[in-house]
């Protein structure tokens, strides 16, 4: 039942962010040169990475602050934790629903690209774009997990969201300072994509944040 409740709480956010991503990506279609497939593919690739990361990160913070964090804000955590259900199951259920929504969000650009490539160029090279999914999902999941953890630490979804956005801003500023500008950041992201299969090996790292959140929830006094 808690799965249903988590989905119910987050479905509108998921739909809105999915729609936004599709709208942004669709808006780039007129800019694709129809007579130069390789240039169009490169442009589409950068657009997917850029908008996918942008929307993915915002969605991750939003979803990460909703689940258990919002239960703290609303005061409904007490009700929840007096159901005969282990705390870790509440936490991982909430995490899994959000992670599933982020995975859907990370897969959407591929679906869109496949359709566009097929109808536009009569050929499908979506397998190349599949490399984007781990990048988008990996980044979004890391941000999601971090927000999850912040919400648990600060006992508030709102505070968790603010802390997550703060830490993202700090990371971006640090990367800009380190890489020498926004162009370097995009190139850096593209570089990561080329190594995306290796990112799968980093998936356990993504689990560190919800595990830490679980330990906090297990010990939390309401």
């Amino acid at each position, binding site marked *: *039942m808690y799965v*249903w*409740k988590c989905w*119910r*709480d987050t479905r509108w956010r998921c739909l809105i962010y999915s729609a936004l991503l599709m709208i942004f990506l669709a808006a780039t279609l007129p800019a694709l040169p129809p007579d130069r497939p390789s240039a169009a593919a490169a442009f589409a690739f950068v657009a997917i990475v850029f908008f996918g990361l942008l929307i993915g990160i915002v969605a991750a913070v939003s979803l990460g602050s909703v689940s258990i964090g919002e239960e703290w804000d*609303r*005061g*409904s955590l*007490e*009700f929840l*934790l*007096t*159901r*005969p*259900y*282990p705390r870790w199951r509440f936490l991982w259920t909430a995490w899994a629903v959000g992670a599933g929504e982020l995975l859907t969000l990370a897969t959407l650009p591929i679906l869109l690209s496949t359709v566009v490539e097929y109808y536009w160029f009569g050929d499908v090279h979506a397998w190349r774009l599949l490399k984007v999914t781990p990048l988008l999902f990996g980044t979004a999941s890391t941000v999601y997990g971090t927000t999850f953890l912040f919400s648990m630490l600060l006992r508030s979804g709102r505070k968790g969201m603010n802390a997550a956005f703060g830490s993202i801003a700090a990371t971006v500023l640090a990367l800009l300072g380190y890489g020498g500008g926004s162009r370097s950041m995009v190139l850096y992201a593209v570089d990561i994509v080329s190594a995306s299969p290796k990112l799968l090996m980093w998936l356990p790292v993504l689990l560190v944040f919800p595990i830490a959140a679980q330990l906090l929830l297990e010990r939390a*006094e*309401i």
Partner: protein
Amino acid sequence: MNGLAISSDGLTKDYRKVRAVDDLSLGVPEGSVYGFLGRNGAGKTTTIKMLLGLTRPGTGSAQVLGLDILKGHLAILERTAYVSETKILFESMTTEELVRFNRGFFSRWSDEAASKYAALLEIPPRQRFGKLSRGNRTKVCLLLALAQKADLLILDEPTAGLDPVAVDEVLRILIEDHVSRGHAVFFSSHHLAEVERVADWVGILDHGRLLLEARLEDVRSQFRRITASGNGLPSKASPPVLAWSQSEQFWKYIVTRDSEQFATALREQGAAVVEVSPLNLQEIFLELVRKEAPCTSGSVGATHAGVV
């Protein structure tokens, strides 16, 4: 389970430098209605939270339905229904959705009971919880607790926000549908008249300490206020004296038993016993908690539920 639905031994809880619950040893007999009384901040809610595993005790131990609160808290939650002081549920859900959400957690959940109480308490089924009045929110919380068919009801201020008709209905349901099946109710309240109406046992808590735990019947039949005047009268609270106070030339004693013998002893000391009068729960409560410092240590002079 030694006949107790809830028992605690030396339960203590500190929040930083504040001692919220202090060496609490109480016993709630099975099948009883236990009124847990105290002023705001007395430690009632903290005690309840410890019993339900929401907060860990600093020291001491407790059992609920024979299960240790630290080791068996999920089993306790399966068999215990709880209505919190805050009565906060999910604002966007309707009563119907809350029922559907809640029933999945409890093996003994009764849809029939849920429908029955929803009708009895006149709860709007399709209105969102966030749009309900305070009284209706309380009713929804009670409905969810009652439909669990739990062995023990723990209710923190269960009638707060209810109109007198609803209070009457809720108390009737508690007695007729829950206690009559041999299940216990442990509830905290500020409404002493309600407690006096339905409780078998009372516990009075102040500054985290249990000042009194007694069977209400004993309170009615044996507790007396003795007013006397004289010199050199006893000025300490030891059994059977639960509390004492002095104003001008009069000494007032609250005794838990043997009031005639105590009055005779005072007369033998040269005192003039002005009055020996029965007390109601409110008078005892006020007498005990009005004092700046608790005048007794633990449940002095009272009968402990555990030895019944």
